[in-house]
């Protein structure tokens, strides 16, 4: 009779197989139903709305959120809004992804359309807003809405278009900004140049190179210091994207086809590398925040979002550096450098609001009402005044309150800080010249890849590596696989063979593991055999 030596050890094995079978059915089983607009918003019930917001470590913005929530709750006492603040969009993105699988997404969330494209790869995760917007009672400017919400025609159409994915609208724009070129006028004049209304890339490169002139003792002629980085660009993704757009070169399209790795990109990278080599250009990730260098008189041209205008300039209300280090100069604001001054193009960016689907359509209605509240004049004007943002509704932009705010530029170095208002005016005057990049699942990765190209080239130049065609080919290949760009654009696997040969290192790895286990098994057999022979 064969006795089972270890009856207990069978149990774990059985349990494991059962669990495995059960689990594989569990993955991806959590789904919500499609959202249907209810006939009536039930004001009798209480709703708890979770709101994930981003603020730029600007205390005033937190206050504005709190005020908005308080005002909204006064209008709708049956809704309680719980806010959670983030300082980084990526963290919001990560948390949303984690919570999708457990069905615990927030109700309302401030995010980028790029990210929404990813959320939408699941079914019924994000609520489509077209129906809600057009609803006569609860839609934009609807009759039953307890506050003065803008109509859909009162939202700037360019901004609303950005929130359309696959034809439907999945988000409401919240704030908009663009990138601006902040120029140290004193330095530019000292170098013998004037500042045109629209600046070209050639101009910027030329003046930057001129700014590198040194005194006999090794300090820079322009500021008498040891440090001078004439041109710093904060967001290298935007830099490459804007350059390519202005040159009419490929980047991507709505179906997710990627054309970033083209010849124009390559020639742009060579240009950039040349200027990094002389020390005329650097980026935020390599050297530090442009505002810090700019305010300390160690930079001539700083490109940053208009939403960072409160950090730029001699009298900037917010600053990271010691007041003794700040140098006095005049700051002017211009659109980012262009290739064709008659057809300026600048990127439009800024937070948008999206609503997540829940099982209870009434809860979604409550979220929708709150999201709408964020578009009212009070919130729009208050929030946009904190930075160089622009309200997304023409209703707010044309209101007397906002126009008054703009007119008082320079009155003080705080709410009416002149650089900040100049930045807002820049976007207001250029709304037809803004563009956005196509949004699809993977557009975030593509954007990061674009930035990475410049970062890598800059880093390699600084390390005195040779930048030539071989380098560029390798760079393209590295960045493409870094961001897994081959996974998007409708790619899916066909068979193992499509993947290609296993690289040598992998084969080695598998071989080593296999060999070790052979050795281990042999060892145990030998031991077992020894034990069997007691003599």
């Amino acid at each position: 009779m064969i006795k089972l030596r270890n009856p207990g050890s069978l149990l774990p094995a059985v349990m494991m197989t059962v669990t495995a079978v059960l689990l594989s059915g569990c993955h991806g089983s959590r789904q919500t139903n499609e959202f249907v607009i209810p006939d009536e918003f039930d004001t009798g019930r209480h709703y708890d709305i979770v709101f994930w917001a981003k603020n730029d470590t600007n205390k005033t913005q937190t206050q504005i959120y709190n005020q908005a929530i308080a005002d909204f709750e006064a209008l709708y006492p049956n809704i309680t809004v719980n806010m959670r603040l983030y300082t980084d969009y990526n963290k919001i993105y990560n948390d949303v992804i984690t919570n999708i699988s457990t069905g615990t997404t927030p109700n309302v969330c401030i995010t980028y359309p790029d990210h929404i494209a990813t959320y939408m790869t699941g079914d019924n995760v994000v609520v489509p807003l077209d129906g809600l917007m057009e609803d006569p009672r609860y839609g934009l400017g609807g009759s039953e809405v307890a506050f003065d919400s803008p109509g859909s025609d009162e939202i700037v159409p360019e901004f609303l278009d950005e929130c359309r994915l696959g034809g439907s609208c999945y988000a409401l724009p919240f704030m908009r900004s663009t990138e601006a070129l902040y120029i140290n006028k004193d330095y530019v004049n000292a170098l013998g140049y004037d500042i045109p209304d629209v600046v070209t890339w050639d101009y910027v490169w030329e003046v930057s190179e001129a700014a590198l002139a040194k005194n006999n003792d090794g300090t820079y002629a322009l500021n008498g210091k040891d440090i001078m980085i004439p041109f710093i660009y904060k967001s290298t993704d935007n830099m490459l994207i804007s350059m390519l757009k202005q040159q009419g070169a490929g980047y991507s399209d709505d179906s997710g086809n990627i054309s970033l790795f083209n010849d124009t990109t390559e020639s742009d990278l060579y240009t950039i590398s040349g200027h990094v080599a002389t020390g005329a250009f650097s980026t935020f990730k390599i050297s530090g925040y442009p505002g810090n260098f700019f305010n300390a008189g160690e930079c001539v041209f700083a490109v940053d979002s208009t939403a960072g205008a409160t950090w730029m300039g001699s009298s900037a209300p917010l600053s990271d550096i010691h007041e003794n280090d700040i140098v006095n100069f005049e700051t002017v604001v211009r659109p980012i450098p262009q290739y064709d001054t008659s057809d300026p193009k600048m990127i439009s960016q800024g937070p948008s609001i999206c609503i997540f689907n829940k099982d209870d359509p009434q809860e979604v209605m409550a979220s929708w009402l709150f999201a709408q509240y964020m578009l009212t004049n009070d919130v729009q004007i208050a929030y946009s005044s904190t930075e160089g943002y622009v309200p997304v509704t023409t209703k707010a932009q044309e209101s007397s309150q906002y126009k008054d705010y703009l007119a008082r530029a320079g009155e003080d170095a705080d709410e009416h800080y002149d650089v900040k208002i100049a930045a807002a005016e820049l976007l207001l005057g250029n709304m037809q010249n803004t563009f956005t990049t196509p949004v699809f699942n993977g557009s975030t990765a593509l954007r990061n890849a674009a930035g990475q190209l410049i970062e890598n080239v800059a880093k390699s130049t600084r390390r005195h590596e040779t930048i030539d065609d071989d380098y560029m080919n390798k760079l393209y290949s590295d960045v493409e696989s870094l961001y897994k760009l081959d996974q998007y654009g409708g790619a899916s696997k066909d068979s193992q063979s499509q993947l290609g040969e296993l690289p040598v290192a992998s084969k080695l790895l598998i071989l080593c593991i296999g060999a070790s286990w052979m050795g281990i098994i042999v060892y145990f057999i030998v031991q077992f055999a020894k034990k069997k022979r007691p003599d």
Partner: protein
Amino acid sequence: MYRHMSRTAIGTGTSVRKHAVRTIMYIFLGIWAVIVLFPFYWMILTSFKSYASYMGEHLPKFYCSDPTFRNYVDAFTQVPLAKYFINTVVFTALTTALMLMVIVFAAYAFARLDFKGKNIMFVAFLALMMIPNELVIITNFVTITDMNLRNTFTGLILPSVTSVFYIYLLKENFEQVPDELYYAAKIDGTSDLRYLFKVLVPICRPTVITVIILKVIECWNSYVWPRLITDDPNYFLVSNGIQEIRENGFGRENIPAMMAAVVVVSIPLVILFLVFRNRIMEGISREGTKG
């Protein structure tokens, strides 16, 4: 170098050589002490620098020209650090208590008791030790959310209770207690349970205390799991607090305030360690072989 190191290098060398050896050892230890202490010195130094002067420091300075307590005040006012402290104490206490119960039994089973499948189970346990935390986190997150334990202490504690690491450590320690004691106890008719608590644990007290201290430190510094599981500030721990300071500080990363927070957060641990260090450093008692 071994020649100089062993304590048994007694009496076989001349007095001069002994002194030379001693001096070299002191220098060696001194160098390592400096290497260990320097980052802490830097941390404390930075915590006393005001934000503006820290950002304005282009060349790192070894001293502080205008020390300020501002960062410490900020650490407690910008985030409710005191409340986080209390949360962390509760979390640590409960987790450590639970853990002790679990691992003492498990280590005893492996070290002393003999039962079928013991070796396989031990290898299985060891195998579990190799699973990195980052991996199980997502599944645990789903499990805890499904059990509706988000934002509760239960949800925080349960996955953090057991670690095979400590079972292994305690088991090694239990095994070094000689068999004679066990057989002696058995002859007296003592049950396994009594033997465990009346004899084994007291003998291995230094290691048990070490395990407690290590677990306390681990709970105190734990960050990833609490951050994932709680979004209600009422349940945040001190590590969340430090991150909050880092991110929501006055400007970009408020490094001095963060350093102040870290110093404040580490002080209880340091005190704990100082109080118990004698016990920890006792080593395994040699009394076990008597009788």
